[in-house]
Every structure is written in structure tokens, then in C-alpha cells.
């Protein structure tokens, strides 16, 4: 198998597997007072300290969740509710239109059910929000904005946002900003403390940790209204018994990701550049999605649109040859939809239907790229003959 879908999920690192399995064999609820509880709590808190160190945060700023989606929901809904409750006039939400559905749909839910007025920030042809655009959006009425949310790097086209600059603008107006850094963590330098963000989402299984674990990095001055109520764990912001094995493994993966980040980004970036060159050579009319400047995109991401092709057809044909990738966009009832990210960048809907995202990871090799290079030309030709239905 040629696995080119690491942005969907990447194999667990051996040290994460080891940390997890070690914890799975012992008992203890981190909230219990007895010895078993104390042991679990120590593991959790050491993991919290480790993850905080990996992300330039203070341990008290780490709120463990059951994954990226939950962290995004907690940040978007919780911060909105808290701000609106404190100042009822604050109902405006400024969001980029290229967000992951975990943010996008949470924002739309607030608009439908909680009286939020959503303003989608303009993006350029690479899907990037410019700080001036954020400033202009806030300036129409700085007193009615509840929240800004712009992802650190895009999961489909890999575009990196100027998060620090954007956060600085939000901070000028005392508006909390959240960033979904699920794809950025492990590929870019992600320093929560230096970013100026109020909240930031990270996820375990995208960096070689386990599924079902994530965290919201949350500035100490913010108290979002909880989405989950219960035992009051995690600063009373996220109730629920802590998942000690997953937390330990997440921290182990985080340590690995940060320790090897520069070398990984350099090597994977070079392999990604080879992949782009190979695909372009085999399919000269392929359109590279996102920023062509390597400095402006995730080093492991390559994204293409193939004119006249259905993304699903391309996927099927590559899958039949043992090459696994993604169209990059979400499905509705299993039916591929043109990506909202590409539509936001101004791409024609027909072209936006013929996309493939190739994402590399820690197990990717030169052979993977060679296999794709050999397959992609005939696959594109065949998919084009099947056309758009």
C-alpha cells in the first residue's frame, strides 16, 4: 500500500504505542484520592506539563478533550457564550471561510440557534486571511465582536495563515481569537504562548498519537461556557474522566513531533516537492491548490485539481492500484461535494470537483512518490474520459 493520506490520520509512533499500552494495563481514575488515583493523576499531570512544553504553553493552559472536533466546539461555542453573556451586544463572530467543518459548522450552529451574526473574512486565492482584512472587519464595530477564529494551517490545501499577526490585531481590540492548529502541530513551529492566541486546538492522531484525544490550549484568563457538564475536571471547562492512556501517548507523540520537527519538515518538504514535480510532469494541466511558495504551505501537503475529472473517479482508480489518498473535501451522505475551501478561494465549482490531496507523514518514502508518479498520468486520462456526471 502507498499511503498518502497522513492528514487524515498518521500511523502511531512506537513511543506513543508504548506509553499507551503501559497505561492500559493499570487502573486508576485521575480524580480519585487513593493510591491508584494518585498514580493516574501523576501520569496525567506529567503529560500535561510535557504537552505544554511542546506547545509553548503553561500546564494550566492545557485542557484535554476527546479530539480536535470537541476542542474546536468548546472554543467556538464556549468563548462565544461567555463573551455574549458578559456583554450581550457581542454577537458578531469573525471566521475564515476555509475552516475545518468542526469550526465551520459550530459557527453556523451559533448563527442558527444562538443569535450569532457570522462574518466570513475575505481570503485571497490561496485561502489566506490578511491581517488588514481582519482589522477592517473588526473596525466596523469593535464593540460587538465576540470571537475571531482562523485556522493555523488548512487541512485541504495546506495554506498557512499569519496567525500571530491576526492574533495581534484581535488582541488590540481585546477580542479572543481561536486557531485550529490540528494540521500545523508537528509540521510548523507552534508556540501558543508567543502566538497571542486565546485558544488553540490540537489533536493526537494527526501527530502519531492515538485517536480520540486532543486538547484545547486555553489562556488562563478565559473561561468558556462548558459544552460538557459533569464532574468539573479540566478547570470546570471540560468534565469527564481523564483518558490517562491516551493522554500519556499524546504527550509522547508531542515530544517526538517537536524534537524532530525541523528535520521532519525539511525532509518531508523535499519529498513533497518531488511529488508535485512528478504529478505535474505526468498531468501537465493539473492545478496546484494553495500557496505555490513552500514557505506558505504545510511541508507535507500537496493538493491538485485535475480539469474535467471527478475527484471520486481519481480516488477509485488510484485505490484500485493500492494508492491511498483523499479528495480533501468532506462528503454529505457519502456524496462528494465541491470543497468549500476551494470555492472560497474563487475556484470554479467544476474544477473544484476534481481534486486530490496527497499528504505525507513519518512513514512516507521515495518509493511512495515513485508509485504515484507512475500511476497518476493514466489515472487522470481515464478519469477524464469518464467525465463529470
Amino acid at each position, binding site marked *: 500500500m502507498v499511503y498518502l493520506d497522513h492528514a487524515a490520520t498518521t500511523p502511531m509512533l512506537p513511543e506513543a504505542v508504548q506509553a499507551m499500552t503501559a497505561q492500559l494495563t493499570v487502573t486508576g481514575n485521575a480524580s480519585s484520592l487513593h493510591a491508584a488515583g494518585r498514580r493516574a493523576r501523576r501520569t496525567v499531570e506529567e503529560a500535561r506539563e510535557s504537552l505544554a512544553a511542546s506547545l509553548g504553553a503553561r500546564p494550566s493552559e492545557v485542557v484535554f478533550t476527546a479530539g480536535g472536533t470537541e476542542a474546536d466546539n468548546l472554543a467556538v461555542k464556549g468563548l462565544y457564550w461567555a463573551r455574549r453573556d458578559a456583554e450581550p451586544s457581542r454577537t458578531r463572530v469573525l471566521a475564515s471561510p476555509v475552516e475545518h467543518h468542526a469550526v465551520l459548522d459550530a459557527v453556523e450552529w451559533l448563527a442558527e440557534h444562538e443569535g450569532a451574526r457570522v462574518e466570513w473574512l475575505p481570503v485571497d486565492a490561496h485561502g489566506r486571511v490578511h491581517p488588514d482584512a481582519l482589522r477592517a472587519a473588526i473596525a466596523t464595530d469593535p464593540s460587538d465582536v465576540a470571537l475571531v477564529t482562523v485556522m493555523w494551517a488548512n487541512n485541504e490545501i495546506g495554506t498557512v495563515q499569519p496567525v500571530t499577526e491576526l492574533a495581534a490585531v484581535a488582541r488590540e481590540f481585546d477580542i479572543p481569537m481561536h486557531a485550529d492548529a490540528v494540521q500545523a502541530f508537528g509540521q510548523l513551529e507552534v508556540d501558543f504562548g508567543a502566538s497571542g492566541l486565546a485558544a488553540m486546538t490540537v489533536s493526537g492522531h494527526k501527530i502519531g498519537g492515538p485517536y480520540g484525544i486532543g486538547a484545547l490550549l486555553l489562556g488562563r484568563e478565559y473561561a468558556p461556557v462548558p459544552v460538557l457538564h459533569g464532574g468539573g475536571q479540566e478547570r470546570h471547562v471540560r468534565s469527564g474522566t481523564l483518558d490517562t492512556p491516551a493522554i500519556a501517548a499524546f504527550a509522547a507523540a508531542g515530544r517526538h513531533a517537536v524534537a524532530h520537527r525541523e528535520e521532519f519538515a525539511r525532509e518531508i518538504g523535499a519529498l513533497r516537492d518531488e511529488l508535485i514535480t512528478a504529478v505535474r510532469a505526468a498531468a501537465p494541466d493539473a492545478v496546484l491548490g494553495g500557496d505555490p511558495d513552500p514557505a506558505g504551505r504545510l511541508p507535507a501537503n500537496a493538493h491538485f485539481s485535475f480539469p474535467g475529472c471527478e475527484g471520486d473517479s481519481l480516488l477509485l482508480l488510484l485505490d484500485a492500484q493500492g494508492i491511498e489518498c483523499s479528495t480533501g473535501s468532506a462528503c454529505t451522505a457519502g456524496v462528494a461535494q465541491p470543497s468549500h475551501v476551494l470555492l472560497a478561494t474563487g475556484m470554479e465549482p467544476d474544477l473544484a470537483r476534481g481534486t486530490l490531496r496527497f499528504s505525507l507523514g513519518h512513514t512516507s518514502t521515495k518509493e511512495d512518490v515513485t508509485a504515484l508518479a507512475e500511476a497518476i498520468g493514466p489515472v487522470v486520462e481515464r478519469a477524464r474520459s469518464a467525465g463529470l*456526471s
Partner: protein
Amino acid sequence: MTDAPRRLRVLAAMSGGVDSAVAAARAAEAGHDVTGVHLALSENPKSFRTGARGCCTIEDSHDARRAADVIGIPFYVWDLAERFREDVVDDFVAEYEAGRTPNPCLRCNEKIKFAALLDKALALGFDAVCTGHYATVVTREDGTRELHRASDMAKDQSYVLGVLDERQLAHAMFPLGDTLTTKAEIREEAARRGLFVAKKPDSHDICFIADGDTQGFLAKRLGRAEGDIVDESGTKLGTHEGAYGYTIGQRKGLRIGTPAADGKPRYVLDISPVDNTVTVGPAEALDVTALTAIRPRWCGTAPAGPGTYTAQLRAHGDETEVTAEPTEDGLTVTFTEPVRGVAPGQAIVLYDGTRVVGSATIATTRRATAGSAH
């Protein structure tokens, strides 16, 4: 006359039901390289099935995916909702509006499963489309193919496949066609294969009318159009809310106040969209002796001249002997014995023994009662 064993690339249409799941499993077990595909045919799919009606809910799509995963084949959902609406649903409504009685399943097989789907499959390098229909494909010595009734006449679905031409048949695979087993045994086979759809209820009625209320469905699209219900002499007997709500041969729901003079039940004899009138009369007046049909589809070359065949006029209908002759734009059919309940819009499928010869859409019928042609 059986196929030489050759590994084919097969696209299995999987509705989420038990038949198509077992068909895909059998194709895979026969050594073919099978990929499953669920057709999303509804533009606004509902989340869950309700009872035995309808299809294309998200739950059906999930069931099909689950079955494909168990069989161990790739699975995709293809959105053919727009094509389905244009070619099947809109046509269905237009046919009723014109006073005819269409069969959307034939239309779907002709235009969607063995056209839109097949064409895309062939373009993508597949050799055949596989479905869970009960019918048999026989390959002649010259390589051309014939469609035959299923081995088990009780389950035979060759009627709804009667629209397939030779090219479509050349790429059709029906792994259930030679099954001499009961539905219960098919369900057992599904269970044995670990396919949990084994216990799923069969689908009935028209898939895109989930609540089974065809009249309500048509009323929503065509609106209310009050008109007269008259007898054969033209005397008004009552009022209807839309002539499209009636089918020739229908007896129930006529809502006529006064009984017939002879006390016998009355049936719908004719639907006239031009003056929005429904004509009713006695059962004898339903007797049809001959018909003309249009849009012929032949499984192979068209017959050169008149011939004697058996004909089937509706799904699960009985066979009846006919003489049929191709004309310039269709065919004329004479029944050996008069038949009842023949409506324009229905498909007539001609058989030579178990072999499907072809089909056409009924345009006009000649009644046994003197002078009434409809």
C-alpha cells in the same frame, strides 16, 4: 453456453438491500475484481428508512457500505440524483400528467443503472455492472448475449430489464439469476456471509415515493385539477381532483355517488388529460384485444416480421399469448385472448420461451367493445 471463467472488473450496484449485497458477494467469490457503488438518487435523502418503502436514505447507503466492507471490496457513493430526477422522476410525473401509467423501474434500468452508471463504469475501465436482479444472461456461441427469465419464475425480474439492448446486456451481470432458492435461503446465505442486511425488509413500491402515496406525490407536483367522472355515454357521475390520480382498470376510490344501473362495479376505462375527464364503465369494457406500442427496445436484432410470442404487461403479471409485428416506430400487438387492465404508458415485454425478445411502451389500446380505441 456459459461464460469462460475470466476475471472481470465488476462494478456492483449496491442499494443497501439483501439481494444486491449477496449479488456483489457472489461476484467477488467467483473471482472477479469487484467494487461496490451506492447510487445516491434522492436530492434530499432522509436519515433513516421507514418500513419497507423507499430507498436511498443515508441508512441505506451505510448498509451498503457495511456490506461492502464485510465482502472486502472498495465502496463508493455516486451522486446520480440529478440524472435520476431528469430521466426517471420528471418522466414519471409527465407520463401521469399525460394520462398514462409509467413504470419507473424499467426507466431507471434503461437510463440510470445501465446507461449513466454503466457508461461511467466502462469509462473507468470496468467490464460489467452487477445488480441483484433475478434474471439470467446467456452468452451465445458468437459471443452475443440473450436475456432470459430467472431460473425461479416466482422471483423473475426480467420484465424490468426488458429495456436493455444488446450492448447493455453485454456488460450486465446478474449473479442471482440462476438461484433456485427461496428468498429465505438468500437471506440465510447473506447471514452466512456475515452480511447483516440479511434481515432487512424487502423494498416495495416506488423508491422515490417513500410514503407510498403516489397520488399525494403527484398532487404536490401537478396541483389539484378538478374534472368530471363520466360514464361511457358521457353522463357525469362525479368529480375528481386530478385525472392523473387514476389508473385504467382501477375500481377502488372512484367516489361515485350513484351506483350503476345494473348494480355491477365500475372501473376506470379511460383518462383524458385534454378535457380532464375520467371515464368509468363495466369490467367487460376493459377487455383489450390489441395495442400499439412505441419506443421499442430489442435485445438483439428486431424481428423481421410478425411472430407469436408470450407477453408480460406488468411486473409480476401473467404471461399471455400475442402476435406482434414491428412497425416503423414501434410495434402492433394482437392478443389471442382479450386481456384487462392494459394502460398506455405501461411496458409490454415480449418473450420467446424464457428469452426476452424486446419491449416497448404501450401507446394505444383497442377495446373488445365496438368502436372504442384509447
